[in-house]
């Protein structure tokens, strides 16, 4: 027979906020437990048409709200690196089993399940979604490549929406070349999603860049955010030097409104959420309460039973910002600030910079026990600072795993490119990936199978 396509036979995992025909799609929420999608999201259909094998739906924060993948109804996702030799070696241990239970670290979120699936070798690639960093954040914590495409490049039809003006399907793979292959299968106009651009998309193979002297790399100073770990700061600096020493032009740039992206996101996100969650009323699909006294009381009870605190909190906040008396001062104001943030990027790219280089996260993955000490909104506000502005501006960005931290956990760096210039972005990312030689995760169970696979871990690593 003939192969169905470039992805024929490749195992893939899909985040559970993408509709998959005949397969339960829950968004990790009680509201959609038992909901069997009647259709495939366009991206899922495209993968299946290429012959990809859907291994399963992955866990996430409920309705993709969160930065830890800890707030879904199926429980938190554990970072596979918690069980790696690299992490265990570095943790001060008393007894093995005690450690594993209390020391395991989060994956980051909200596409934590997808990142963990790729990171632990259960599939070759996974789909995530990215609204504020939800693909890049867990990619960084799990040591995998996380690509956020330009808004409008990949169809959102079938992706249960969080923020319609910022959501994009995200791609998680083990290497940059794989991300390019996935992108090739997924990008392109979809008549079912009017927010996809109409230009023809040509899938590409990444060239092996050897000469970076014509590149101009921008280092935005605002990304030296409060709370950025010394380790990551040093790694970021080393990466900049790497480019400089290879002949590229590396310059300091400024994106002055970066600081406001979290507040702006907070308002715009809650407002869109208030609207997007309105469809869940129990009548046509999803959970329905037994309360039967009136339509409104049934809706209210259904929504109380179906949504967790995070979702309900955002709906209420969103409705507040959309009240007539608040609309101008909050919603419209946030939209104006959004333009300022997007313009910051336009100015920088217009000044001759090709790619921006920034950290992806403030630190390596924290233990779950520590992460849950702060509430979801606080955590999201802290963790999204380095990734959110990119969604405001709709630009493409990618996390490339760079090195292991002192605790033996992955740290990644982020490259941000110009709109629709994924080829240039991925080419630079691939060059960088080749320079840093990020080590392979050493999971006890996997090691037994094939020694040959682990050859390259012996070569010098970046840190």
């Amino acid at each position: 027979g003939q192969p169905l396509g470039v992805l024929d036979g490749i195992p893939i995992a899909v985040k559970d906020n993408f509709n998959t025909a005949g397969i339960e799609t829950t968004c990790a929420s009680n509201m959609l437990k038992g909901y069997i999608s009647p259709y495939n999201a366009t991206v899922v259909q495209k993968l299946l048409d290429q012959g990809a094998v859907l291994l399963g739906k992955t866990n996430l924060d409920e309705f993709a709200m969160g930065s830890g993948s800890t707030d879904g109804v199926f429980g938190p996702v554990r970072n596979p690196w918690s069980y790696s030799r690299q992490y265990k070696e570095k943790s001060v241990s008393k007894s093995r089993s005690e450690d594993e239970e209390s020391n395991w670290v989060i994956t980051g979120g909200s596409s934590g399940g997808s990142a963990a699936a790729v990171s632990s070798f259960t599939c070759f690639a996974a789909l995530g979604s990215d609204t504020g960093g939800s693909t890049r954040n867990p990619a960084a914590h799990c040591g995998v490549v996380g690509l956020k495409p330009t808004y409008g490049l990949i169809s959102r039809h079938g992706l249960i929406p969080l923020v319609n003006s910022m959501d994009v399907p995200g791609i998680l793979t083990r290497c940059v070349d794989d991300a390019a292959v996935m992108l090739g299968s997924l990008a392109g106009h979809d008549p079912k999603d009017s927010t996809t651009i109409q230009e023809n998309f040509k899938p590409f193979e990444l060239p092996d860049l050897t000469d970076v002297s014509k590149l101009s790399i921008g280092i935005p100073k605002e990304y030296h955010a409060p709370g950025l770990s010394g380790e990551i700061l040093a790694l970021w600096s080393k990466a900049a030097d790497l480019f400089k020493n290879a002949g590229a032009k590396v310059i300091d740039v400024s994106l002055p409104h970066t600081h406001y992206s979290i507040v702006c996101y907070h308002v715009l996100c809650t407002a869109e959420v208030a609207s997007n969650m309105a469809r869940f009323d129990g009548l046509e699909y999803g959970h329905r309460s037994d309360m039967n006294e009136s339509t409104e009381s049934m809706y209210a009870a259904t929504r109380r039973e179906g949504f967790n605190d995070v979702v309900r909190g955002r709906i209420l906040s969103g409705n507040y910002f959309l009240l007539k008396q608040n609309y101008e001062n909050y919603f419209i104001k946030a939209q104006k600030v959004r333009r300022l943030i997007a313009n910051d990027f336009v100015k920088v790219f217009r000044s001759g910079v090709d790619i921006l280089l920034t950290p992806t996260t403030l630190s390596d993955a924290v233990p779950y026990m520590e992460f849950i000490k702060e509430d979801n909104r606080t955590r999201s506000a802290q963790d999204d600072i380095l990734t959110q502005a990119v969604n405001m501006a709709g630009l493409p960005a990618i996390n490339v795993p760079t090195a292991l931290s002192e605790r033996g956990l992955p740290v990644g760096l982020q490259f941000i490119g110009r709109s629709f210039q994924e080829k240039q972005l991925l080419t630079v990312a691939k060059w960088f990936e080749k320079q840093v030689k990020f080590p392979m995760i050493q999971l006890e169970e996997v090691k037994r199978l094939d020694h040959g696979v682990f050859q390259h871990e012996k070569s010098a690593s970046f840190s």
Partner: protein
Amino acid sequence: PKVTAEVLAHLEHLALVDFRDAEGVERLQKAIQFADQLQEVNTDGVEPMDSVLEDRCLYLREDNVTEGNCAKELLKNAREKVEEYFVAPPGNIPLPKLDEQQTSLQGS
């Protein structure tokens, strides 16, 4: 500005989601406080941005039916239905006022 009980009730009614307890109300207060930081930014002369694709033309196609006829598929996911109708409880009955609601909630 502290959120009045009137606004809280109004929000619960609009959102059809309840604050559940004082913690929920506190969460809203904090959210508003957080959002107030936006006022620090000077946005004189700046137009609000709806979409990053604002400079492009929307794709429009011919107004012809290309798919549909899947009533059976769609009805599968509804809990209460009769023939091709989704069944809702009686409408036009306003939600009880906040204090009445508390007592009815305590019951469920």
